[in-house]
């Protein structure tokens, strides 16, 4: 099942016209609009959306991607911006794209319409623009939330030549159109694309309907899913319980220790090698006198996301200290570039022998 989601800034009628043809292939259409959208525009969107959300202003759109995609329940998700539409060719291709099992993410060509609704910009950088907008809804889907970014690249991906059409340069030339000093070439859109673009570009809201505006989702609720959010002190609660691992190591030996990690805080941890907030298990080595001799232990990626209240069993790679002796191995979690959790001591004695 395909979910279509859209974050629409201003013109609801235009977004509605763009989304309407997708109803034939989508199992659900979810639209988020800005808090102050006029009632007639809101009514236009409500007519095509299965779910309509109003959200408080954010710093930038990408801060909303994680939250927006969490509203979706389909196996696949297609995201459109409020000033975009699917070309008729893309609409026709969608069913076969969704059938493929050997793809996790599609990069769809995007055509920038300029200088009029019948033309587009074929040259770089506009003509080579591809957007990761169609993806499986699974644990690999992740958004950094940095300004101007979309979904993080995911393997395996494929290209889709059938384009999304962007009206951005026509609607906001000051932001998106080629600068005047630059001479750019334009090409004619084919008739089907031109007709589709014209229909969306000139869509107007009808008279105000009887739509009931949904309550506004506060910015805090949206940003709670943003990868770049600051974590509160309530996030840094965890318990690491060692379950197996050697009591004797050789100097410089690297071995896995199995631990069970409990997320007792109020934030989900995304897991993986590079997903923010980047929270990873690690450890410290203390000598017999209680002095820390290795503070920054090796890091091991969490093998899966871990929600508040959840627990996961996993191996943590441990590197023995460089000198023989009796030590205490103390496991903990670290939020990279921020702080250690200082979890309740999950320690065990380890004897390190000469190699």
């Amino acid at each position, binding site marked *: 099942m395909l979910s279509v989601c859209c974050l629409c800034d201003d013109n609801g009628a235009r977004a509605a016209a763009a989304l309407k043809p997708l109803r034939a292939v989508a199992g659900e259409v979810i639209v988020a609009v800005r808090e102050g959208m006029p009632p007639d525009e809101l009514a236009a969107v409500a007519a095509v959306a299965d779910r309509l959300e109003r959200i408080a202003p954010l710093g930038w759109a990408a801060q909303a991607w994680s939250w927006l995609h969490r509203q979706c329940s389909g196996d696949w998700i297609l995201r459109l911006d409020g000033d975009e539409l699917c070309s008729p060719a893309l609409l026709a291709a969608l069913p076969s794209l969704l059938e493929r099992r050997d793809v996790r993410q599609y990069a769809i060509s995007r055509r920038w319409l300029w200088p009029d609704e019948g033309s587009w910009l074929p040259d770089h950088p506009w003509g*080579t623009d591809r957007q990761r907008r169609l993806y499986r809804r699974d644990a690999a889907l992740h958004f950094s939330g940095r300004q101007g970014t979309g979904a993080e690249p995911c393997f395996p991906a494929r290209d889709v030549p059938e384009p999304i059409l962007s009206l951005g340069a026509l609607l906001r030339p000051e932001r998106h159109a080629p600068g005047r000093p630059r001479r750019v070439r334009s090409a004619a859109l084919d008739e089907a694309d031109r007709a589709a673009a014209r229909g969306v570009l000139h869509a107007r809201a009808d008279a105000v309907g009887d739509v009931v505006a949904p309550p506004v989702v506060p910015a805090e609720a949206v940003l709670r899913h943003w990868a770049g959010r600051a974590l509160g002190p309530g996030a840094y609660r965890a318990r690491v319980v060692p379950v197996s691992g050697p009591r004797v190591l050789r100097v410089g030996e690297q071995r896995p220790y199995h631990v069970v990690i409990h997320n007792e805080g109020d934030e989900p941890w995304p897991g993986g090698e590079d997903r923010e907030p980047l929270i990873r298990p690690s450890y410290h080595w203390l000598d017999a006198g209680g002095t820390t001799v290795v503070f920054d232990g090796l890091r091991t990626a969490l093998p899966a996301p871990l929600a508040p209240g959840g627990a996961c069993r996993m191996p943590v790679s441990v590197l023995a200290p460089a000198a023989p002796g009796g030590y205490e191995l103390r496991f903990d979690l670290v939020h990279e570039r921020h702080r250690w959790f200082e979890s309740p001591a999950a320690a065990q004695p380890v004897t390190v022998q000469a190699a």
Partner: protein
Amino acid sequence: MTLSVCCATADPPARVARVLAPVRELADEIVVAYDARVDPDTLGPVAALADRLVRFEFRDYVEQALGWLHSLCSGDWILRLDGDEVVSRRLLELLSGLKHEHDVAQFWLGYRWLYPDPGHWLAEPPWSFDTNRLVRNDPATMWFPGLCHTVAEPAFPAAYPDAPLYHLSWLVSTPQALQVKVEHYLVMPSGHAPEVIEQDVPAFYRPDVASHGAPAPVPPEDLPFILNVLAASHDAADARGVLEDVPFVPWADVERRWAHRPIPETAYRARVLPLVDELRLRRGERCQVPVRVGNDGTETWPGGGHRAPLVRLGHRWADGAEGRTMLPGPLGPGETVVVDAVIEAPSRRGRHGVTFDLVHEDIRWFGCAGPALRVEVRG
């Protein structure tokens, strides 16, 4: 969610039948591929249990056949068992709950080498490790490197349940037979570093001559499973029976799904075209260049940073400096993809040229580079 259990083996059929029996009720499908050198008339016990039984042409090591073996499976999950392994009770419990498991791509199972008797195992490397034997049958994530002693490519998200597999090699072989394995595996192409192989393979197969700590006891709940499989030698004599129509799969069919298959000359055909004519960059500046790559050859390139045959988009500056960008996904014959090649401008000001071509790492460049992209370096 459905479960396939697969097994590629040359082990005695009576034992293999006992290895598979505990999962029979849990598996929607059991697929067994027998080394074709085994007398087909002895396969009766396995034929009685398996939904699909084939004989295949074995070459050097079983990992060569894993891509092909898994392609025979139709379940949503695939568990691979060897003919000298035994499931634990907790693994059976895990399998019984799999139909509700949607959030994991792979389960890593604890591997326990039984030594010196059925009631003990060696709880330390190289005999004890986690192995991702239970994988989602997802063509987007399931892939096999195909080198000796390798398993499936790791996929995210994963789980490490306390659900072990027991290994019987020591209990069903002689030290002499295990030494033969050591000599064989030391010369096979491995997915591990040579120094690791030289150290671990002899110890792995010959715990009797390696140093190790005291073996750990097998939980009482698992001992009956182990003893039952070991008892297979008693019923081997009853196992004979003439089997007809066990399909034979030649090496060519197995090899087609082996990552390290020989690549024919006809594969190295491509169109590689940067979609930018010229660039202006600062010294040392990194930028992305969209390059259209069309596969005009006869092979599918798997893409990614590690998958063999490792074909990547390469670029070369006139002074010989090179760089690589991985293909974002598989690229089949006739298919095209735009790759954002990451290049770094030379440190010298002036006019430069950079060409793009596909490269089969450690083998060859394709020789399909188009015209050079002109790069003017300033500042």
